[in-house]
């Protein structure tokens, strides 16, 4: 029994049917972690991208190193780092929040690169025109650069969203009750790992195929010449 839902081990099929609602509870946590983690990655990545393009090397260089470091080291070790080191500084978060922050941190390295590539792909003439019109930097970003960068950025971001969804399974290592951890607990208590783990694989496959399709759909509907910011 888990989350107050009992299981039926009389046959593999009955077992599978009885644990499905339990696994779906885990899937809900998986989706929440993905949404929170991705929101963090989108915001932190934008900050990293803008700072990395700063004209002062004293800012751009350390930010660049940080971005590369975050991108080129394992999520699991970053997760352990946050999980075990933050409490040393008196910062105690629930495991779920630490996990979402770790996901956001790891992927901010990727999203920063996507933002940077998207912004740098804007032709120089656009910047020159904005300068010629005496447009301030902030307005140039808001009305010229970002609207044109969005259609270039969205497809890559979509791929990272799907990728992050799969990486949430790693949060099971720090006791987050996401889908894989739930399946492991069911396995530990019933000594039947085959059915729950296979079901988790199947559920992941369904969710990633659906979310990939959603990303493709959004991609196809994006106007190619940019989205005006109101």
């Amino acid at each position, binding site marked *: 029994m888990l989350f107050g839902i009992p299981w039926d081990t009389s046959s593999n099929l009955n077992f599978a049917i009885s644990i499905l609602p339990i696994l779906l509870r885990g899937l809900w946590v998986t989706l929440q972690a993905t949404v929170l983690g991705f929101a963090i990655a989108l915001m932190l990545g934008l900050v990293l991208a803008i700072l990395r393009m700063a004209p002062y090397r004293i800012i751009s260089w350390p930010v660049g190193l940080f971005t590369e470091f975050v991108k080129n*080291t394992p999520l*699991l070790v970053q997760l*352990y780092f946050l999980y075990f*080191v933050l409490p040393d500084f008196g910062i105690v978060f629930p495991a779920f929040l630490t996990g979402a922050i770790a996901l956001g941190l790891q992927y901010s390295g990727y999203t920063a690169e996507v933002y940077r590539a998207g912004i740098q792909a804007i032709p120089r003439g656009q910047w020159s025109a904005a300068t010629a019109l005496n447009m301030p930097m902030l307005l140039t970003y808001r009305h010229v650069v970002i609207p044109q960068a969005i259609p270039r950025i969205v497809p890559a971001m979509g791929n990272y969203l799907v990728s992050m969804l*799969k990486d949430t399974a790693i949060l099971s290592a720090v006791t987050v009750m996401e889908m894989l951890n739930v399946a492991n607990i069911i396995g530990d208590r019933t000594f039947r790992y*085959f059915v729950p783990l296979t079901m988790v694989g199947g559920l992941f496959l369904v969710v990633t195929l659906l979310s990939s399709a959603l990303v493709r759909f959004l991609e196809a509907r994006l106007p190619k010449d940019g989205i005006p910011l109101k």
Partner: protein
Amino acid sequence: MDELQELLRPLLRGTVVTVELAVISTVLGGILAFAAGIGKLSGNWLIKGLAVIYIEVFRGTSLLVQMFWLFFALPLIGISLDPFVAGIAALSLNIGAYGAEVVRGAIQAVPVGQYEAATAVNFTRRYTLWNVVLPQALVEMMPPFGNLVVQNLKDTALVSLITLTDLTFAAQTVRNLTHESIPAFTATLVIYFVLAMIFLAGMRALERAIARRVGVAQERARG
């Protein structure tokens, strides 16, 4: 000083295991990538179907789920894998599926005129694939392959969760010995970063060597 050595030793031993896992699974994954990537473009529906199913299943599920499945679930239907074998198998199958999409994309990016020219001079399909298409496609594959090699190196950290004593496992050991988290995990992150830079440099050298052999380098230099 002796104490420091006591602590560094598990990390170095773990690093050796991590490098072994990364190198073996990268090579096996590369072979799988070519097999499945070429297979997906095959005219034979059975080969094509198998390649598509393999790629979708291993790209569509979590690596950690795949690893746990091979390690915890398979024994229950009578197939017991040693943790090292399960780890290598999961890593290779996973990175091979991602690599297959790179191989397929690069082959499809070879201009159609190249196939037409090969047909015109009466090359067989196999000869065209090996001597005309793949050499050109290989150059295009190398940069994304570099990213996948680093991805695979980072993914090896997950084997610590199926009891292998890799670098991440060693970090936990050192943390338990010293009761201090910051030095153990910081040192571990730095080692992973240095390894990633070495692997990337190696892939760039390989990329240049291949480009030189295929003759693309000169062509690009001339613009």
